[in-house]
């Protein structure tokens, strides 16, 4: 029972790591970036290539798995994305889906279409028993990383000057600009961080979810579910949302396996019908 709870939390945390970058771009900047998964995939491939071709240790690849997608994100934001902030959501969808297609084919061309594997270090493999619960080490690691991320993001967004500037820039870019806030720098930074977080999520998730060129399409739905269920106005919303989904999914599949596939979708529909803005959003 407790093991199931633990697995659910770990799964939820994994979903959160993958989706929190999207929570930032979609939730805060109000940009429908379906190419989010492509940044996650980029992070995963950075880790896989560094580990498998150059023998870099797993932990050392993680900062790079953050940095490389962040830089790609920054470049794309400066050149392409920034032209689309003012456009309709449909334009943004079309544009980012186009990017996904390009990323999928490009990765397929350069890396091949098969699954990429990574070998996590031995000290992260296996399980230990804590208070009678079997706990997977890698999953604990993910929970720890995720916990740090949530606290850090929440702190940055609510307690720092950057956070308040960002919120101001999102709420009303014109007024923010008038107040001397450099809106475009703020947006670029935020977007880069969002992409970097996606990359980090991709690197951490590769071990459990697998990694192949169709990754962005395969997991797009999950990212979107987490963000919409959690609500898009804060970072705690998606966090609690992903925990709820993770636990419900794992528990549902354990206790009623025959209905396992329906749990996450049904939960999403019910939540959104009852609370269209998401579970943890304040009504605006």
């Amino acid at each position, binding site marked *: 029972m407790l*093991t*199931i709870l633990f*697995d659910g939390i*770990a*799964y939820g945390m*994994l979903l959160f790591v993958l989706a929190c970058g999207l929570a930032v771009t979609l939730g805060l900047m109000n940009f429908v970036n379906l190419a989010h998964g492509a940044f996650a995939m980029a992070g995963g491939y950075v880790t896989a290539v560094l580990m*498998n071709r150059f023998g870099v240790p797993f932990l050392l690849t993680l900062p790079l798995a953050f940095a490389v997608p962040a830089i790609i994100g920054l470049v794309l934001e400066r050149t392409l994305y920034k032209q689309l902030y003012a456009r309709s959501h449909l334009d943004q969808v079309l544009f980012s889906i186009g990017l996904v297609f390009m990323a*999928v*084919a490009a990765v*397929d061309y350069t890396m*091949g*279409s*098969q*699954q*990429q*594997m990574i*070998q996590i270090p031995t000290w992260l*493999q*296996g*399980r230990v028993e804590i208070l009678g619960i*079997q706990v*997977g080490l*890698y*999953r604990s690691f993910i929970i720890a990383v995720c916990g740090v991320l949530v606290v850090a993001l929440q702190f940055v967004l609510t307690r720092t000057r950057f956070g308040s500037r960002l919120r101001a820039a999102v709420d009303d870019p014109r007024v923010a600009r008038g107040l001397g806030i450099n809106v475009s720098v703020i947006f670029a930074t935020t977007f880069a961080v969002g992409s970097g977080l996606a990359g980090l999520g991709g690197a951490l998730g590769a*071990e*459990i*979810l*697998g990694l*192949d*060129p*169709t990754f962005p399409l*395969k*997991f797009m739905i*999950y990212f979107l579910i987490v963000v919409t269920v959690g609500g898009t106005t804060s970072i705690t919303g998606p966090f609690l949302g992903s925990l709820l989904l993770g636990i419900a*999914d*794992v*528990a*549902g*599949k*354990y206790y009623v*396996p*025959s209905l*396992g*596939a329906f749990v996450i979708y049904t939960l999403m529909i019910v939540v959104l019908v009852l609370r269209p803005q998401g579970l943890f959003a304040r009504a605006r």
Partner: protein
Amino acid sequence: MLRRTLLSAVGATAAMLALSGVAMAQETVKIGLILPMTGPFASTGRQIEAAAKLYMQQKGDTVAGKKIQLIVKDDTGTADVTKRLAQELIVNDKIAVMAGFGLTPLALAPAPLATQAKVPEVVMAAATSTITEASPFIVRTSFTLPQATVPMADWAAQNGLKKVATLVSDYGPGIDAEKAFTAAFTAKGGQVENLRVPLANPDFSPFLQKVADAKPDALFVFVPSGIGAQFMKQFVERGLDKSGIKLIGPGDVTDDDLLNNMGDVALGAITTQHYSADHDSAENKAFVEAFKKANNGMRPNFMAVGGYDGMHLIYEGLKKTNGEGGQALVDAMKGMSWTSPRGPVSIDPQTRDIVQNIYVRKVERKNGELYNVEFATIPNVKDPVKAAKSN
């Protein structure tokens, strides 16, 4: 006036079509290779395409005085697209044979066309037993899931396994494997517990926890090959290998294409299948070497060998019929036997399905790489489902 121009234009087009059709038929024999080249099953398509091209490169592109032309089409893994492409190839390109077909629905969708247009359909990958019954023009060079699964059940029963849990992806082939294994294993006095996993399921933890609770002697698993690696990792992560649960199943989980990168988690898995890149024969050594050389070091898997043998079957069939397609070609293919990289194989004249050896293999490290090392052979296995029907 307009009407007349229109009519004459139609007439001219029709005449041109007919002419080009005749001219083509005399010089080239076209083979339409329809595969999922993009999307989640792209790696299946790549393996088969690479193998087919390798075969043509080795054996030349002339058979019985006719030039062979291979037309590769991407069906994106969507059945109605497969059907449309097959129809276009038949109607416009006048192909003599269609081949490929990565998944069961993709092989079934064009089956009525094969019957209607009398174009042989060589199935190189899809593995549901019923496929060859959908049209008398379907010939298969891959395998059927029960064919690989029933020997697994026999092996498990002979080696003292009493209680086995099965874990399969909840879709056609998975259910096929589950049924075949359960029936064969319970018939030998074993005990089986069934679990099904949704196809889109990134995390196996709840199911593996159920397995851990049930404490079986072995876990029989079938998931599509791309997901197999994920499954293996999570199996080991949960410590199920250490708690003495053997991992058994048809060879999809230890796909040669991915096996070497899975790392030590795969060690010791016991599978039954018709092909391992490690198969010890001169034909296979030559095949593996040529395949790797042509494809940047990629190791051929069971999909590749299906494609390679499929091309061989088409070539040999055409030799027999002197380049003629249709019913004659299917008849020529029936009963044909040859030595494939996987070992001796033949086409069952009754069912048009492949008859082949099934090997019991164990994942081991060999010269620094992981391989499915064969340690027992069950010779000349026919598809058990159709064999049972005919008795």
